[in-house]
């Protein structure tokens, strides 16, 4: 140990925002749920890099809200196929990409009651590119089987389904969901972590290359945008987050 500490080029939040942003880069309209500052940063970054071809809606904001027909409009809009990317989290996520936002333990006498499913049960089937984001990477979150299915990762062939989970991003990894195999594939591990750690901290089985790729670091253009226009745009929506998440 040299005792010399390297100043990281990017904060964890900036890396996660850049990683998530790349996964929605081809979107024309990305919607971000309430209380989701990192996905909101990601969507604004992707929109910034798209040179104006990418619309962003951030629920709970005034600045990035274009709907005028009440809370239902977003869902009608999604069912028509007008929205192509959405971020969603989960109290538990399993290897078949089922997500649980209702609670831990047997329903309804749950050990831990969570807020509820919100729009996930619906949007999970209708938005083509659903990106799962949960910062915490642990066996508590990434479980073999969720205790309650708020939204199902897989559907029988006869179910109307134009959307679904495509990616899972955590503080450790990017995983790609293969709906045909019904399994996640480890796409890359963020710098500073390794496969053993990922296997140790993941509760479900997944496919991987024995020598997995490293998540590409935030590039200069991404970092510059995150620290300028993204931060400025998000300031009114998430002031606390903006003051701590972005580097100088």
């Amino acid at each position, binding site marked *: 140990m040299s005792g010399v500490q390297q100043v990281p080029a990017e904060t964890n939040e900036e890396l996660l925002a850049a990683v998530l942003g790349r996964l929605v880069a081809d979107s024309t309209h990305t919607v971000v749920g*309430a*209380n989701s500052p990192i996905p909101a940063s990601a969507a604004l970054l992707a929109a910034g890099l798209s040179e104006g071809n990418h619309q962003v809606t951030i*629920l*709970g904001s*005034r600045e990035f809200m274009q*709907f*005028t*027909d*009440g*809370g*239902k409009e977003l*869902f009608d809009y999604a*069912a028509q196929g007008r929205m192509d990317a959405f971020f969603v989290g989960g109290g538990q996520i399993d290897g078949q990409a089922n997500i649980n*936002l*209702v*609670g831990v333990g047997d*329903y*309804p*006498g*749950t*050990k*831990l*009651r*969570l*807020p*509820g*499913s*919100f*729009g*996930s*049960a*619906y*949007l*999970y*089937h*209708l938005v083509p590119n659903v990106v799962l984001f949960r910062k915490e990477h642990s066996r508590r979150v990434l479980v073999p089987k969720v205790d*309650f*299915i*708020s*939204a*199902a990762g*897989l*559907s029988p062939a*006869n*179910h*109307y389904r134009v959307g679904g989970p495509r990616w899972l991003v955590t503080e450790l990894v990017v995983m790609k969901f293969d709906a045909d195999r019904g399994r996640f594939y480890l796409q890359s591990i963020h710098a500073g972590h390794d496969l053993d750690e990922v296997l140790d901290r993941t509760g479900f089985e997944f496919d991987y290359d024995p020598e997995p790729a490293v998540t590409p670091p935030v590039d200069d253009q991404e970092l510059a945008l995150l620290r300028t226009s993204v931060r400025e745009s998000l300031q009114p929506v998430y002031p606390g987050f903006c003051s701590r998440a972005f580097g100088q």
Partner: protein
Amino acid sequence: MSRVTLEQLVSKISSGDKLAIPPEYSGVAMAATRALLTRGVKNLHLIACPQAGLQADLLIGAGCVATVEAAGISLGESGLAPRFRDAAQQGKIRMLDATCPAIQSGLQAAEKGIPFLPIRGILGSDLIDLRDDWLVIDNPYTEGDPLLLVPAIQPDVSLFHAPLGDDYGNVWVGIRRELMLMAHASKSTLVTVEKRYKGDLLADPVYAAGTIPHMYITATAEVAGGMRPLGFFGDGSVTDVEHLAGYEKLARSQQGFEQYLQEQGIEVGS
């Protein structure tokens, strides 16, 4: 429709009512909720349209609620709703877990005067197993296309806060049209308004587009700041997150919750 005091307004909510409340990004009638706690009601069937936060948690903590129908109950950035969480974990409330568009579709069915609406997605969710009142049918127009039906949701009362109300009973909600949906679906609608509008909201086409006409409105009460400590679309004010964080901490225990009520000067009626 009539213009009444806050106390008269909440006296129109009775024990056992199906009470519809809006999401926190809309107009939550917090002053009316405190008045309702003081009045003391029991066995409410709370319908979050489609989600709720502090308002629901206060009503649950004070023992006013028997059933919660919601897509989500949380304090948003300030965390889990502690009294809701405790009541749900201990089975003190009957939960009708839903998903946002299912509640909105149920309200829309009531608005249209029809018994149900079909809705996409959701298939494969455990929500369907929980909900005896949700049905999966085959699309009668296309073979082999299962489709979920949700029944109409007709609240007895909708309660919310709006920016403007006029002397004719019209209420302006602007783009917050989930409030209009609630009013259309409900048997009665009670509104606290931030300000009295002098004139007829329906006479001005700019206001009229975002106005709930008086036919749907049972009573209004003028209560400036009636949404506090929550934010309000009507005046651009934001939620007092310190208040919510303080509440979240205290209300983790029932004793702490009682202390919060005391600090806020809320006496719960029986």
